[in-house]
């Protein structure tokens, strides 16, 4: 049994077992300085409650076998600021926002703001560079849901010389006024949000998710739970987040972000409650995260036309591993707000369970020539109960007025111009999808801008005994179906190697508009 220490701080660390499966493994015991601490079956596992600048020895044991021992020294820490010392009560009634904010703003570099056990009523807390915000065991940051308690972040402020602009907030790919998030970072760096505690958004169908309340109400759009605007070197580790008003974690124009061993839970049908939405983000690691949500688990974006065209900042270099994604529309979605493109996304060793789609790429004409999706790789994925495991939809019709226009819908080749998006290489290797319902794969490229390469290698798909009919993709002119095979349109190069579709009705492989089919082992 081998493991690596993938992250450490002054008070905790995170380990990753190697060669031990995707998300879960056979139960093992964590032994710290010779003392058995706890048992776990997770490949990514956190340890909390360590002391700063202290040497520890760590090993794992299972069935009498031990891993090699690792010696580690925790990071140094200057001071801890306990929020109780700043007036926070944590009694579930007092508004503790100002007290916790005072602790954050008073915190020197390489120090920790500590939130001990208790329920702390808060609206928005703003981060500061160089600090750690730790939520202790049984600590809950419990958010207000009344809009009047939340400050508004303006979407765009014009500079006085009218040459530039300051973008503070965002809503679904546009720079629009939004309520500040429960945790908000604006231009901060070297920040850690960690611990065993909970951020409770308290959203429900009577407040943030209520019909009209979903849209702009009270002068702004809904807050996220964690919003990181133009931040760098941020770690989110260990915590749980529940009942988010809208997207749960939204890194935006940020880089070097790590999200480790976090649990994200929103009700199954809650609106726009995506898990993690990296938007124009560079270098992102998502490892050991549990998702149970009402919308996309991970949705990688790079803005709608204005932001994508003006700032041309793609999302790139994203690794997703050892995650369990449950419910929601897509497990890993790319788009649809991807006007600046997405490249180098590698998702491996994950479980997708009961989501509508596994990989879901959403784009359409009009996203622009900068909207290039390339080098998307999926490996070692186990899916169960996913309606359609692989979807690439170049005709996505939601959610803007142009979505259902003739220009977007047209299946004939149109001239390639500044509005035409592109999809490069997308590959799938070692994928098992059981109990699918709708289609094995539904990949529809544009005839004038075909998908560069689709590669399926060692992919095994079977269908549920009682499949539920549904639409394989959100596009015009298709009908609900079940047990559809691999359907591909408009692709330059298609590689099919050891691909097995069991139980498809009709053709298992329905291929058209393929320039080069280089696989015969179906």
């Amino acid at each position: 049994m081998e493991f690596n220490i993938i992250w450490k701080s002054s008070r905790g660390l995170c380990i990753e077992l190697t060669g031990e499966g995707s998300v879960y493994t056979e139960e093992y015991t964590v032994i710290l300085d010779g003392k058995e601490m706890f048992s776990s079956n997770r490949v990514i596992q956190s340890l909390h409650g360590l002391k700063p600048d202290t040497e520890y020895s760590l090993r794992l044991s299972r069935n009498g076998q031990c891993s090699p021992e690792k010696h580690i020294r925790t990071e140094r820490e200057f001071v801890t600021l306990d929020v109780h010392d700043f007036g926070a009560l944590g009694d579930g009634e007092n508004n503790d926002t100002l007290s916790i904010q005072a602790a954050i703003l008073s915190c020197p570099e390489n120090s920790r703001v500590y939130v001990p056990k208790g329920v702390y009523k808060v609206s928005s807390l703003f981060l500061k560079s160089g600090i750690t915000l730790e939520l202790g065991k049984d600590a809950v940051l419990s958010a207000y849901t009344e809009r009047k308690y939340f400050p508004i972040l303006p979407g765009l402020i014009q500079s006085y010389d009218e040459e530039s602009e300051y973008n503070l907030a965002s809503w679904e790919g546009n720079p629009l006024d939004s309520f500040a998030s429960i945790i908000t970072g604006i231009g901060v760096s070297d920040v850690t949000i960690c611990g065993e505690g909970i951020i409770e958004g308290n959203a429900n169908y009577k407040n943030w998710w209520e019909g009209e309340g979903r849209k702009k109400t009270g002068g702004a759009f809904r807050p996220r739970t964690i919003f990181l605007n133009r931040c760098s070197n941020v770690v989110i580790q260990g915590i749980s987040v529940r009942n988010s008003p809208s997207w749960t974690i939204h890194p935006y124009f940020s880089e070097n972000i790590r999200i480790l061993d976090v649990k994200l839970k929103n009700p199954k049908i809650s609106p726009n409650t995506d898990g993690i939405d990296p938007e124009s983000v560079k270098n992102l690691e998502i490892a050991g995260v549990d998702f149970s949500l009402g919308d996309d688990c991970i949705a990688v974006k790079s803005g709608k036309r204005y932001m994508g065209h003006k700032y041309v900042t793609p999302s790139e270099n994203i690794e997703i591993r050892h995650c369990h994604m449950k419910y929601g529309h897509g497990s890993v979605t790319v788009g649809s707000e991807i006007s600046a493109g997405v490249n180098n996304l590698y998702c491996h060793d994950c479980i997708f369970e009961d989501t509508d789609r596994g990989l879901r790429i959403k784009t359409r004409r009009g996203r622009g020539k900068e909207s290039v999706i390339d080098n998307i790789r999926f490996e070692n994925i186990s899916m169960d109960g996913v309606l359609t495991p692989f979807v690439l939809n170049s005709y996505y019709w939601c959610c803007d007025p142009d979505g259902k226009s003739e220009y977007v819908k047209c299946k004939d080749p149109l001239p390639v111009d500044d509005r035409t998006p592109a999809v490069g290489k997308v590959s799938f290797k070692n994928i098992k999808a059981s109990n699918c319902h709708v289609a094995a794969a539904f990949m529809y490229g544009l005839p004038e801008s075909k998908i560069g390469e689709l590669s399926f290698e060692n992919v095994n798909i079977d269908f549920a005994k009682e499949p539920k009919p549904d639409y394989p993709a959100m596009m015009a002119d298709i009908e609900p179906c079940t047990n559809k095979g691999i359907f591909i349109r408009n692709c330059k190069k298609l590689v099919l190697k050891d691909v097995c579709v069991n139980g498809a009705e009709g053709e298992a492989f329905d291929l058209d508009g393929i320039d080069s089919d280089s696989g015969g082992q179906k």
Partner: protein
Amino acid sequence: MNRTIFKDQEFTMRELCEEMPKIAIFETTENAKEGYQDIQIIFDRAYERVSASGTKLSHEELSFYLLALAGTAPQIDEEVFDHKMNLVTQYRTVLKNNISVFEGWDKDSVRRVRESIKIACESGMLLKEKYEKYIEEQ
């Protein structure tokens, strides 16, 4: 309302000013914004005329054009941000090119430009602290 009245025929800036804000309201409130693209095309054509004609375009036409933009852009739903900002950018560009001279234009044209600046300041298209001095006659 025929929202394509301007699309395939010549139009005056006065017609643009009188109709486009109403068309934009109709599109936003009753037509699911499906005609936003048409609005954009129409204003792009108007902008081509403004850009191509330089000083030859009359002050009256320029003032109607600016007032048309100031009346229309705020009616475009902000969630279709690029359409809204295209109009705002057109307005800012043309206003900036004329801000130092418009007060020498004929009385009605000056009044229209002032009115457009007032709307633009109120709707956030312009920085109020920088432009409000142009709203009232000096």
